[in-house]
């Protein structure tokens, strides 16, 4: 392993590491435009110039692999490197428009950051002499502004290497170089949003997020995408309890720096059409506590002739608390309509998405659910053998099989997040929080347990599903000793082999693999 000295700090890095990566490990961020951790190195922007001993000229940090004994001086210690970076930046800004007030990238723009760090020069370009390019070009889910582009080719490399669609390319030459799609056509694949994240400046911007909010107002919360069993790491950007966008969070072992567009759109479900109060069929609002008491008495009288239907949208904590609830009553418990277990790891495309559109099927399987098969449970409901049916997700009533079975059940309880006509079949509706509003963990297709955090409070009286289940358990006289999702996880880890040596804290920001022998 080569040893390299960066700004006087000696570190040992793996063979083949580039200087820019080594500097990052040493705690120095070399400014860059074209270099991206998950894209092939191109070395065209010339921003990451560093001084390396025994090299006659400055070298680009992204394209130079470290060798043993290399001594690197970055902009921190080398005035020469700093000057070179400053000059490069000035060249990049020659034709850059003064759009910052109307540009959505402002606040997370590499040009802005680096101008404030290194530049602070007065422009020597006369406004009239700037080269003008195409602005506000609608290319499907993205707005293209060629004038703001720094010609780094990140988007082109992304199209070439990740989606393999090659939709973007440079046209024209020299100062007039600009990016374009073929004939100005739209970006058609389901991974267009990543182009916006990949673009270091405001040339490619999301049409969905366009003009919604300035980014410096947004708070970031680490989360996991609930869109499918891949479990991509995401960041939820929110302000005052409202989510504005979802961005990928880098995790080399799961999603690298990418997420799909359907996943990106999931922030929209958080704030629309939510169930905020406990109510009965037909919408008569009741006090949540009264309704839960009613559910408890119904469950007590039903006993083993009650049935519980879990949802793979629920977190591990939700599922565990729900399982406890079913066990304490003695009712039957299962999940998943149909037989999709074998689809958990099946890819939908060659990039990220999987056929199983639920985030936690594997987690529920680990808890020992889904062994007997849900069909027998639903058949019993249909035959009238079930008195109380508790649905962990009101959305399950959208499934024809469940709706059909629920007709013959005397009392249907739905723990629901979203309103809809399907909820009319439930006799009691308890409002529940979505994933962004609670702490928890999902286990992805690959048995990787990943943690998501509470971004903001649930609306109205809604509570996390695990909290509702614990509340029911307490009122049934069988309390579980847990006050937070982390406590529930500890309880679960005691009983579940797969999570035996894990806690919320030990999962860290990137998650850990569950023990392979599932319970």
């Amino acid at each position, binding site marked *: 392993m080569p040893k390299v000295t960066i700004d006087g700090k000696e570190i040992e890095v793996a063979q083949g590491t580039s200087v820019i990566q080594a500097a990052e490990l040493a705690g120095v961020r070399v400014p860059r435009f074209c270099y991206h951790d998950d894209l092939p190195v191109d070395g065209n922007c010339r921003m990451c110039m560093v001084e390396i001993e025994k090299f006659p000229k400055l070298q680009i940090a992204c394209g130079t692999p470290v060798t043993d004994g290399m001594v690197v001086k970055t902009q921190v210690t080398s005035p020469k490197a700093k000057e070179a970076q400053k000059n490069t930046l000035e060249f990049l800004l020659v034709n850059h428009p003064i759009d*910052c*007030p*109307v540009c959505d990238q402002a606040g997370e723009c590499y040009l802005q950051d680096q101008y404030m760090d290194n530049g602070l020069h007065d422009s020597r370009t006369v*406004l009239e002499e700037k080269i*003008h390019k195409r602005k506000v070009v609608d290319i499907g889910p993205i707005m293209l502004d060629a004038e703001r582009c720094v010609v780094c080719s990140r988007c082109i490399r992304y199209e070439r290497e990740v989606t393999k669609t090659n939709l973007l390319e440079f046209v024209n030459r020299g100062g007039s170089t600009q990016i374009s799609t073929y004939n100005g056509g739209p970006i058609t694949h389901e991974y267009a949003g990543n182009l916006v994240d990949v673009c270091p400046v405001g040339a490619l911007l999301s049409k969905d997020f366009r003009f*919604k909010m300035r980014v410096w107002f947004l708070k970031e919360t680490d989360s996991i995408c609930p869109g499918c069993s891949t479990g991509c790491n995401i960041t939820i950007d929110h302000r005052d309890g409202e989510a504005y966008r979802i961005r990928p969070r880098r995790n080399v072992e799961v999603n690298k720096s990418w997420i799909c567009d359907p996943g990106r759109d999931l922030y929209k479900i958080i704030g629309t059409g939510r169930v905020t109060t406990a109510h009965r069929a037909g919408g008569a609002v009741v006090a949540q506590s009264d309704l839960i008491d009613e559910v408890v008495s119904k469950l007590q009288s039903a006993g083993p002739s009650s049935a519980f239907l879990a949802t793979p949208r629920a977190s591990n904590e939700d599922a565990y608390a729900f399982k406890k609830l079913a066990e304490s009553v003695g009712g039957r418990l299962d999940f998943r309509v149909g037989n999709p277990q074998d689809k958990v790891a099946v890819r939908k495309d060659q990039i990220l998405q999987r056929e199983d559109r639920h985030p936690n099927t594997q987690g529920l399987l680990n808890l020992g659910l889904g062994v007997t098969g849900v069909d027998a449970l639903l058949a019993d409901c249909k035959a009238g053998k079930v008195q109380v049916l508790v649905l962990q997700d009101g959305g399950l009533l959208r499934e024809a099989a469940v709706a059909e079975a629920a007709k013959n059940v005397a009392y249907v309880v739905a723990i629901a997040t979203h309103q809809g006509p399907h909820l009319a079949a439930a006799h009691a509706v308890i409002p529940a929080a979505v994933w962004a509003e609670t702490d928890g963990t999902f286990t992805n297709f690959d048995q990787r347990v990943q943690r998501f955090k509470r971004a903001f409070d649930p609306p109205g009286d809604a509570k996390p599903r695990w909290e509702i289940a614990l509340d029911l358990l307490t009122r049934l006289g069988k309390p579980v000793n847990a006050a937070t999702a982390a406590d529930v996880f500890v309880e679960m880890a005691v009983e579940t082999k797969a999570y035996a040596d894990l806690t919320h804290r030990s999962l860290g920001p990137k998650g850990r693999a569950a023990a392979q022998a599932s319970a």
Partner: protein
Amino acid sequence: MATSVITVNRDTRPGYYPIFYGMWLTLRNMLETLFVKGRSATIEYPEKKRNISTRYRGVHLLTAREDGTPKCVACYMCATVCPAECIYIEAGERPEKKIEKYPTRFEIDLLRCVYCGFCVDACPEEAILMSRENDLVGTSRAELVIDRENLMHRGKLAEVGTGYRPVDHDVRRPVRVAALERLKSEHGIVPGMPNRS
């Protein structure tokens, strides 16, 4: 805890003189206010108003372009810098590509505002200025949250005049001024906004 007593020597002489002096002072002031011109400490508000500085920071106003649309480009600089968080903006897409962005909603809660003038300083477009209007009257709180239309069409403005407006930033930067002069003398170019087609 021990207490200590301080003996204060009060002048206990009967003081009729100060009483009469005080009453005389009051009477004199009253008479002067009534009969001597320019001696009065008060004005007959609201018929008469005080002369206030041309840099007075009163109720805000939004400036308009020549076609009557707001000059504001909804960059949120004012909302960002506002220490009272009293500015609420929602941005929308302008039909012409040259400007792109404009505020579909622009509201200032005048009861929260502390009239610091930071919004005026922060504005890159000279879109928000302050007027000299300082008599703020309303019958409800909601009435004093003024919206974009009210901020743009201030009927009273002709009467009260504009107050605080931004200083010319170029003037504050001698380097920039020197560069501009050189450009003008050597190349005959006077920079302005670019023409985007």
